[in-house]
């Protein structure tokens, strides 16, 4: 019972872990290459969601400092700015993976991983 109360309070973390598991499972089991890339994106996005949710303080204002500083409680800005770097990293991996998929399609004629393994084993 108290486990359910704990889960209901921290539903941000639960959603993030659920998305992580969905992304990892899709990335490892589905055979379409583009699905793998999108699932990798979902997995990374879920960790960014978890990080930004950690930084939230209830009742805090947005962490933008104007010249006369008059707020008392701000949301923690550190996880947000760290995750900006993380998002750029995820975008560059996605760009590189998609360009690899374009080239693989040009050489093998398919984007299904099982068929590619079949073609490789017959060479």
């Amino acid at each position, binding site marked *: 019972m108290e486990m359910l109360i704990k889960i209901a309070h921290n539903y941000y973390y639960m959603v993030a872990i659920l998305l992580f598991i969905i992304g990892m499972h899709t990335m490892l089991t589905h055979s379409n290459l583009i699905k793998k890339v999108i699932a990798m994106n979902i997995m990374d996005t879920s960790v960014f969601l978890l990080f930004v949710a950690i930084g939230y303080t209830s009742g805090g204002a947005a962490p*933008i*400092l*104007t*010249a006369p500083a008059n707020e008392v409680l701000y949301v923690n800005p550190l996880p947000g700015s760290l995750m*900006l770097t993380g*998002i*750029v990293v995820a975008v560059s991996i996605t*760009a590189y993976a998609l*360009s690899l998929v*374009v*080239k693989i*399609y*040009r050489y093998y004629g398919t984007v299904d991983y099982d068929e590619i393994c079949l073609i490789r084993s017959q060479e």
Partner: protein
Amino acid sequence: MEDQIVRITSRLVAPFIQVYGIYVILHGHLSPGGGFSGGAIFGASLVLVALSFNLEVGAKQISHDTASVLESGGALGFVITGLVGVAVGANFLANRSAGFPLGEVGELFSAGAIFIITAFLGVKVASTIVTLFYNIIEGEEKSGNAH
């Protein structure tokens, strides 16, 4: 794509997108945004022009050579800004101790090294998006038409 409506609209809208991108880059230390998102917006406007017209018009806006030089130059500018700190005597990537003018909180030209680094990053990200686009398109053209 040769649609007339797309061409007219993109020709009207592209300067506004570019001004918005430059605004996000320049106000990186004052409001959310900064080099990455502002550079992506600016690069997207150049890709929009290249997509709605054909590639020659896109190449006249920013050619492949210029994009490569800007890409390397932006990253080198970042490293050189860090080395300014070493040359003066403070640590690598130092801000106040390296003598960059700090200004007041809330002004546009403030926060010394952060402003310079944001500007270099914006240029680099915009040229990277354009270079990625050109590489994929030219790769398609070299090996026959797109599937």
